[in-house]
């Protein structure tokens, strides 16, 4: 039993060490940027997963939350000089409010209807942003988008000259969201979400206020997603409505989470990092060959991954993980492991 624990802890330490020393070895800004984007996508997929994966709701409109977070933080910064470090919480707060506003009517919709509602809300928000030049004293910029005011090297304003700080911030964000997901999965709400994902009626009969459980989980998810949006804005320094709110953003989160293994704690991280890395690699090698080639390959990879591993890559990793820990029987341990890493 203790040997298992030691192995688990050493594995975690190993990954943390790798995570923190990567910038020592990867010094080319381009490569570090690519790795940073992998972490960001892993973070966004994990944020989506907090509600949608855990509660089995297919939201195809989470770009709304990245957009709200990013726009609120950037508008506060551009027009009132409020540091994005503070603005990001205002943005996340706005996203939480919005998630409740959206969730209240939509959560009574069943699977397909909920998915369609989120598609419509997402598309509607893109149209709205594209046609809003200003909101009171704030410049929104409409379809041309919004450029983040440049401050040079200003850590207090979330702006750095080198890529390294961005990398570390993304890493810390990812660690936080994973810890949060782990906590959530094992909390009362986590059990409630697993239950209502399988059978809302049975969950309700066990005293669970299904709508409230969904609202709270969706609020957590919106909060983390919005912070990811702010990070994205500060990294790219430019907000383009379709890129931050549109279907690309919304669908990508879902692809990554599902390919990794939605509803598990680590699946979206695995999916986010591997799938995004793959997409960067094929873009690097095939991007110039023919227009659309790399996305074509990317789409095919997603298609085949979903076809052959609909439960996600995490399922394969789980097997190796168990073997590493020396767990072979279908006993107590397998399950306790499963709840933490997979399942």
């Amino acid at each position, binding site marked *: 039993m203790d040997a298992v624990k030691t192995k688990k802890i050493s594995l975690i330490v190993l990954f943390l060490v790798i995570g923190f020393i990567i910038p020592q070895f990867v010094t080319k800004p381009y490569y570090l940027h690519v790795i940073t984007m992998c972490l960001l996508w892993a973070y966004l997929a994990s944020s989506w997963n907090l509600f949608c994966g855990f509660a089995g709701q297919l939201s195809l409109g989470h770009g709304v939350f990245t957009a709200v977070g990013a726009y609120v933080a950037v508008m506060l910064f551009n027009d009132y000089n409020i540091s994005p470090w503070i603005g990001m919480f205002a943005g996340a707060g706005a996203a939480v409010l919005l998630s409740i506003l959206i969730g209240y009517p939509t959560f009574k919709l069943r699977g397909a209807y909920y998915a369609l509602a989120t598609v419509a809300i997402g598309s509607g928000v893109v149209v709205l942003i594209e046609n809003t030049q200003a909101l009171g004293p704030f410049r929104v910029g409409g379809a041309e988008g919004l450029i983040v005011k440049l401050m040079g090297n200003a850590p207090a304003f979330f702006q750095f000259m080198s890529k390294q700080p961005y990398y570390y911030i993304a890493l810390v964000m990812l660690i936080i969201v994973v810890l949060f997901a782990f906590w959530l999965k094992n909390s*009362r709400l986590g*059990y409630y979400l*697993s239950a209502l994902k399988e059978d809302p009626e049975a969950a*309700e*009969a066990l005293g669970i206020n299904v709508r409230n459980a969904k609202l709270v989980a969706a609020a957590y998810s919106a909060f983390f997603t919005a912070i990811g949006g702010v990070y994205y804005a500060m990294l790219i320094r430019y907000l383009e409505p379709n890129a931050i709110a549109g279907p690309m953003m919304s669908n990508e989160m879902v692809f990554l989470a599902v390919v990794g293994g939605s509803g598990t704690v680590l699946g979206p991280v695995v999916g986010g990092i591997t799938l995004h890395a793959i997409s960067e690699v094929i873009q690097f090698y095939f991007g110039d060959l023919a227009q659309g080639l790399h996305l074509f390959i990317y789409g095919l990879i997603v298609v085949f991954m979903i076809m052959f591993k609909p439960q996600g890559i995490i399922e394969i990793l789980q097997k190796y993980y168990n073997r590493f820990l020396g767990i072979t029987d279908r006993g*107590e341990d397998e*399950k306790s492991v499963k709840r933490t890493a997979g*399942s």
Partner: protein
Amino acid sequence: MSNALLEVNELTINFGGLIAVNQLDMKVNTGEAVGLIGPNGAGKTSAFNLISGVYKPTHGQVFFDGENITGLTPYQVNRKGIGRTFQVVKPFGSMTVLENVMVGGFVHTSKRSKSREIAMQVIEQVDLKRKINSLAKNLTLSDRKRLEVAKALATQPKLLLLDEVLAGLNPTEIEEAVKMIKSINKSGISILMIEHVLQATMAICSHIVVLDYGKKIAEGTPQEVTSNPEVIKAYLGDDYEAVNN
């Protein structure tokens, strides 16, 4: 009246012309085990759905513990102290037995350890310890029914509504399940159970209510009910069929 835990008055539900439950009056006293029987389609499950808040009654009230709980939502009803099982069992398939039961255990605590403790105790009570780490979807029907009871018990109800938990079990399994229900009742939880297996109902319940076409046609002790000619006419014919199946 003073010791009536559950009391329903003139409970009625109308599904577009079909009156599934019609002016039903009945009660369950504290500590008692009451049986609700009747032929297929008599409205038994509908009566459960009315009590547990799944349906809103067209007419009539439900009182629990002296409080009017008519029109509350299912989760509110559960929190008042009524646990229920479903005729078509609803396990959370990809969760383990323990996790399934812990979901119920969480209703009165936010602590994992406490919920686990409650769950372990309940699992012991329904004799599912041997399957504690199995996924619910891999259980046999008999174990699924036990799990169904365990989940409801974990919410620590004062009254347990059991919808055909014996249906589909073989005679040995029925015998075990009867023992289990009796012990639950003995531990102080009142029981209202729907059942087609009449001998088992008579072994557990001191009082039986008979429904036919949504209406109560008889009630009383098992002896009184089984000797009632109207009941024999409406119900027992069907029952022999049910037993033979």
